[in-house]
Structure formats: structure tokens, C-alpha cells
């Protein structure tokens, strides 16, 4: 879909695409770094936020809640450096799909929780209403960034490009 909209001015696309790619990569990196940083200070609370979704046993939720902030930070660093970009984008997309599914299921089951996406999390106080739709739309926006990098992983100023020796080369079979 992105191909059809952007192939219009065919001449400009090859010039613009690498910079869109850098923006997508750094944007997604910022999302993960921020998400991890807001959670890493209180791992028990992160576990409670996962537990609030009520989709897994408490022990599993706390283990995932403790591991998740560090994985998010690591993913952010990989994207920041541009190392294994396609794989990082793929894992980002997979995580985001899981998050969207989690929020949607909380919504469907009528739970009143904060998604815990960036810190906080858990059940909302009385009178507060959940904001599931904005949370899902935001995650879909991040998913679009990940999708861009999945399709075009090679961006300027990346370790991937540096390792390849020629960052401008178009190699579609790269990283597939």
C-alpha cells in the first residue's frame, strides 16, 4: 500500500526513502527506549501491570513484567544503532501485535485497566475510564514504523550499512 502511494513521484522516492527509513528507525528506537525506561525502575509494578490483563498466572506475569523493560531497552538500542534492523523491526512488530491483542482483549472483557505501556498500569481508579482506542491506534502507528523497516531495513547511519561496506547499495535479498 505504501508502494502505490509513494511510487507516484517516482523520481523522488529513492531520495526520500532512506531518510524516511532513518526517521522510522530512530522513532521506533525512541519509543522502545522510553517504554523501557519508564518501567525499569519498578519491576514489581511492571509485573503487576502485566498481571492486570489477567491472561496468565501471576508468576508468569511477574517474570514477563520483569524481563520486558530490559528487552524493550535492548530493542531500542539495536534500532538506534541500526544493527539487525529487519530482525529488530520484526520483533518490534510481533511485540506490538501482542500488545494490541492484549489491550483489545482487556477491552472486550470489560476490564478497566491502564495499558501500562509507558509506566503506571494496573486497574484504574473509580471514575477514570480506560482509553483503549487511543492506545490501540498509537500502537498501530508504531506498527507502521516497524512495517516500514521490515520492508526497507537499510537506512543511512546504521551499523548494518557500515558492515555491508556500501550503505547505498540496494540489496533486496539482504536480511531476508
Amino acid at each position: 500500500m505504501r508502494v502505490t502511494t509513494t511510487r507516484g513521484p517516482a523520481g523522488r522516492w529513492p531520495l526520500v526513502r532512506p531518510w524516511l527509513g532513518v526517521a522510522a528507525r530512530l522513532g521506533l528506537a525512541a519509543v522502545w527506549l522510553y517504554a523501557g525506561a519508564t518501567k525499569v525502575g519498578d519491576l514489581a509494578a511492571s509485573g503487576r501491570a502485566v498481571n492486570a490483563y489477567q491472561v496468565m498466572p501471576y508468576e508468569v506475569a511477574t517474570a514477563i513484567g520483569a524481563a520486558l523493560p530490559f528487552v524493550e531497552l535492548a530493542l531500542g538500542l539495536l534500532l538506534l544503532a541500526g544493527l539487525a534492523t529487519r530482525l529488530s523491526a520484526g520483533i518490534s512488530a510481533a511485540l506490538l501485535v501482542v500488545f494490541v491483542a492484549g489491550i483489545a482483549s482487556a477491552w472486550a472483557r470489560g476490564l478497566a485497566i491502564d495499558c501500562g505501556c509507558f509506566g503506571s498500569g494496573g486497574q484504574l481508579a473509580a471514575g477514570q475510564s480506560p482509553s483503549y482506542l487511543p492506545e490501540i491506534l498509537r500502537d498501530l502507528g508504531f506498527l507502521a514504523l516497524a512495517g516500514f523497516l521490515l520492508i526497507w531495513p537499510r537506512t543511512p547511519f546504521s551499523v548494518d550499512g557500515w558492515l555491508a561496506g556500501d550503505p547505498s547499495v540496494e540489496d533486496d535479498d539482504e536480511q531476508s
Partner: protein
Amino acid sequence: MSSRKGRNQAARVVREQIAREKRRKRTLWTSVGAVVVLVIAGLIGWSVYSSQKSDTFTAPPGANDAGTGIVLGTGPVTIDLYEDYLCPACKQFQQTSGETVNQLVSAGKARVVFHPVAYLNRFSTTEYSTRSSAASGCAAKGGRFKEFTDALFAQQPAEGSAGLSNDQLIDIGAGVGLNRDDFGSCVRDGTYTAWTEHVTDDASKAGVTGTPTIKVNGTAVEDRSPAGITAAVEAAGK
């Protein structure tokens, strides 16, 4: 001529194949490296969390048998209150329905198990939730849990602030009649910090995802108004 062209073509195909093979290997190794980084990151998180967890705790006097809260009163119906001293909605609940709960206890209709959970450590810069909860354990030891709890809610610090300092907590404790030396050293030493963790952990396991949570005989009460609490206790007492 044509055979030479063929040889060139063959050489190019071989070169491209070698280049592709190189790229493939490079991609494989960077991918393996990235996956290793992510797995190690997850394991770090898990081990940090495990090392933070303490296995042993001492419940203060006045706690229930499971050591998950402080018991007030002896009535037949049990009201479980899960509250964080930093939580504004908890303060509000105490203001509107606290007196009703007191009356139910003094009328002998219900007993209260107060669980001082530390859910909101992220909303103070000094882990006020844990410190205040552990201090409430010290107050229970000194026999002034209820008074100390009421005083803490009355002087609740704002979310996002540093919270009350240990010295301020000790002043509040002394103000409700606790022995300044005993209570002070208990607060400073964090005697009941491990207990607070146990209380918080148990509440999470019990499905308490937010504060305040009020349960009457184990069932969560949605209507936290005085009338709602009274009705729930009446219904449970029948």
C-alpha cells in the same frame, strides 16, 4: 567470442553467488547477535527482579495469620482494605467511608484487614509507598496502627513528589502517641520493608490490580460509598 562472453557471464554469476553468500552469512551472524542481546536483556531483568525479592519477612504484631494485613476488630464479616498511602483515591475513600467502616467495626459487625500495599512507588522519588507501609508496620508494633494510618492519609503528599521523609513519618508517629525512639529506629532500619513486599505481592496474587480495593468476605465491592459498604456487610452477615 560467444564462448568468452559465456565465460564472463559465468564468472559474474559466481561472483554474485559469493557476494550473496557473504551477505547471507553476515545477516545470519548479526541476527544471532541481536537475538542473543535480547535474550540476555530479558534474563538480566528476570534476575534483577529475583534478587530484589526477599524470601523472609516478619509480620508485625496485629497482623493476620497469613501476615498480609493488620487486623482491626473482631466482627464476623471480614472487610479487606487494600490501600496505598500515596493513593489519592484511597484518601478520598477514607474521608467518605472511613467513618462507616469504623462504626461497623465498633458495632461488632465486621473486622477489618488493612493491607498497606506499595503499588505506587513509581509516583514518588523516594519509594514513599514502601516506606510509609513499612512505617505502618512499626506503628502496628507500637499498637497505634489505626491512628497512624489516619494521620498519614490526612497528611498525604502529592503524587510525583518526594513524599514525606522518614523524619516526618517519625514525627507523625510520635504525634499519635508512639514511642519516638522505638518507632524511629524501626522506621529508619526499614524493619518491615520485607513485610510490605509480602503484603504487596500477596495482594497482586489475590487479583488486586489497583487501589483502593475493598472486599467484603472476599468479594470485591464496587460501590465504595458508606451505603454501599454497609449494604455489602449486611448482606454478607446474613
